């Protein structure tokens, strides 16, 4: 789950905030995706109705996951494929490694798969001496750079063309120009060779259709098609929740996913794979394996977080998130970033390790509003925070601070005195603009990233009271005719 050696979220965020190239790139990507989505919603029409339909389908499926998984597995086997259920990262990786060994694989091509990032699959295959090539252009770029993806849909948005040209030039052994067509041409040539030489193709799975045992992959570049056409073995790895009951349900998902992800009506390719090639086919893999992965997902079933399993990984919540906008994907330090990452990562990777993530949010709820299957992301973030408090895992200083706070606010007289004192206490620390910026003691947690305005000279309660007194005084003044509000109105 972890993708960064830096264990402190605050330090990772700090690094990201200092990187102006990254921030400009993330802003641009967010705006492009967001506008695209808005236009696509309007063009389709009845967006809310589609969302509700999407939510209903996802809810029904997850509520009956055992039934649909069994149906899927039976049908994949009927189609001639092999199905493996993996409870842990270990079991999943071991199976893929075993297939690679049995096939004597020397090279594996992969098309983008978040779940395989979760499993650290590449590392295990490389340890076996297998050459693993990521073939999505963005994934290829970050694989060369040795970095994790920074966005679900656009993994390399944090890299500019100059950096990409440098990476490609290193592979080419000569300086390449940094215009997009040249870079694309180079990648195409390089990766086509990899496809033609590969023994195994590994893909993720966007949707598995239970009623026919079909794995559906959506892509724009065509690398998922090459991955499932040229190598003699295809291994698809899916999170256990990526399933829809029927083709009709797939239809609804295909209305929601591309529009929410990139603003497209449909991706360039939608590839539906049902087992290995048939006897009369001359291309396509001879063997098909489907690995269905738990890796922490099943523990989410039956809890307050179950809705997070409805996610279709469109990335729309990232594209509207003000926190993501400023820090980008890497600062989250986990495979999944943005709002979905903040909810999902502590569930898959453990709250002890990921306790900071649910707090990296302004709770503005833009994510929940953007989500095409109506996952209440911000409510789940609050749920995480509540759980931290009731379990008593928050730091002692915070717990005591809140205890003190409660003690004060439940005593009105004390509270008002405390508010008046707050300004007096903080005033010596403030600068000429009336902002506290010094980083000392308990203030540092706030002021290290932001400034803290001094409380107003007069508290709201004092002002309210004063206004009340003035108002009362006015009402007691004698009124002469023709004056006052009534007179004004008739004028």
């Amino acid at each position: 789950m972890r993708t960064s050696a830096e264990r402190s979220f605050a330090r990772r965020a700090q690094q990201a905030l200092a990187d102006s190239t990254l921030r400009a790139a993330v802003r641009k990507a967010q705006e492009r995706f967001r506008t695209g989505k808005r236009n696509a919603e309007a063009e389709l029409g009845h967006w809310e109705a589609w969302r509700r339909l999407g939510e209903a389908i996802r809810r029904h499926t997850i509520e009956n996951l055992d039934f649909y998984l069994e149906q899927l597995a039976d049908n994949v086997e009927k189609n001639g494929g092999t199905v493996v259920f993996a409870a842990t990262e270990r079991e999943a990786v071991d199976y893929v490694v075993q297939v690679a060994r049995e096939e004597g694989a020397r090279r594996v091509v992969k098309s983008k798969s978040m779940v395989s990032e979760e499993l650290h699959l590449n590392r295990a295959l490389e340890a076996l001496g297998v050459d693993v090539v990521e073939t999505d252009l963005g994934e290829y770029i970050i694989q060369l750079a040795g970095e994790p993806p920074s966005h679900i849909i656009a993994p390399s948005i944090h890299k500019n063309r100059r950096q990409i040209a440098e990476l490609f030039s290193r592979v080419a052994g000569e300086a390449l120009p940094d215009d997009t067509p040249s870079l694309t041409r180079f990648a195409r040539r390089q990766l086509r060779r990899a496809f033609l030489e590969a023994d195994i193709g590994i893909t993720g799975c966007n949707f598995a259709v239970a009623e026919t045992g079909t794995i559906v992959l959506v892509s724009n570049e065509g690398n998922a098609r090459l991955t499932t056409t040229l190598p003699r073995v295809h291994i698809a790895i899916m999170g256990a929740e990526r399933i829809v009951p029927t083709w009709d349900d797939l239809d609804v998902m295909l209305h929601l996913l591309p529009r929410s992800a990139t603003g497209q009506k449909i991706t360039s390719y939608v590839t539906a794979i049902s087992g290995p090639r048939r006897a009369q086919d001359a291309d396509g893999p001879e063997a098909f394996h489907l690995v269905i992965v738990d890796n922490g997902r099943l523990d989410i079933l039956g809890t307050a977080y179950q809705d997070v399993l409805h996610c279709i990984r469109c990335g729309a919540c990232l594209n509207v998130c003000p926190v993501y906008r400023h820090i980008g994907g890497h600062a989250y330090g986990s495979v999944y970033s943005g709002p979905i990452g903040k909810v999902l990562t502590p569930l898959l990777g453990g709250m002890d390790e990921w306790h900071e993530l649910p707090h990296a949010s302004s709770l503005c709820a833009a994510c929940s509003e953007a989500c095409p299957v109506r996952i209440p992301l911000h409510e789940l973030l609050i749920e995480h925070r509540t759980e931290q408090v009731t379990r008593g895992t928050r730091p002692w200083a915070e717990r005591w601070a809140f205890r003190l706070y409660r003690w004060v606010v439940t005593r009105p007289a004390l509270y008002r005195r405390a508010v008046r004192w707050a300004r007096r206490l903080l005033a010596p620390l403030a600068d000429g603009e009336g902002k506290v910026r010094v980083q000392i003691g308990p203030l540092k947690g706030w002021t290290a990233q932001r400034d803290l305005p001094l409380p107003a000279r007069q508290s709201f309660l004092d002002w309210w009271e004063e206004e009340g007194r003035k108002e009362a005084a006015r009402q007691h003044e004698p009124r002469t005719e023709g004056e006052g509000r009534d007179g004004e109105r008739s004028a």
Partner: protein
Amino acid sequence: MANGARDARREAFLNRVAARLGKPRGRRVVRPDFGPLPPQAEEQLATPAARAAAFCRALEALQGHASRVADPSELADAVRAIVRRHGVRQAVLWDAAHPALEQVEAALGASGVTVRRWPDGGTVYAEACELGVVVAEMAVAQTGSVVLPARGGQGRSVSLLPPVLLVLVDEERVVGTLTDALRAIGQRARSGDLPACVNLVTGPSRSADIEMDLSIGVHGPGAVYAVVMNGSASREADGR
């Protein structure tokens, strides 16, 4: 992994899912009726000609090339134009029983292009071709997509490896919406007619992974041509 071990894992996995959901394993689940889909504009396209025109517009909007032909000589013209524009020297065609494929084969031959039917020459030949030619089982007016099932002589490689793709579309096979297309595929799949691979192809291969800059043809074909043949064109080609 031995089958026994695999089965044991599967049972344990599914039992755990059911237990977490608090439901009995092996119950029969009936998919509820989720209600009708919201209405879509393309449902209104009543005639094949209207759908064909919408399909062409949708494909053009995605940097694809679409044209409509009325007879075999217009089809041959379209083919010649592609050959000239892309310097086609070798082409690979689906081996399917569609009269228009023969028309195209003849036109290519007359232009001096080497032509083979899949899988003649296999991957190596297809990879060396500049042009692949296929026939759409369906086309979608709403999205500009074509449906390409892979079976036998209708190889996946033909629409994938060469940098230029020509898709032949019968006008009557253009449906209104994506929903229409997926319903048809689903129906056939349920009745047992499910190829190992079905592709929906919509325009050229595209990527925005370099600075959100659109680049065309990163892995799949960078140029996609659809020629929509109206009824009389395919009938004449058929010799009927």
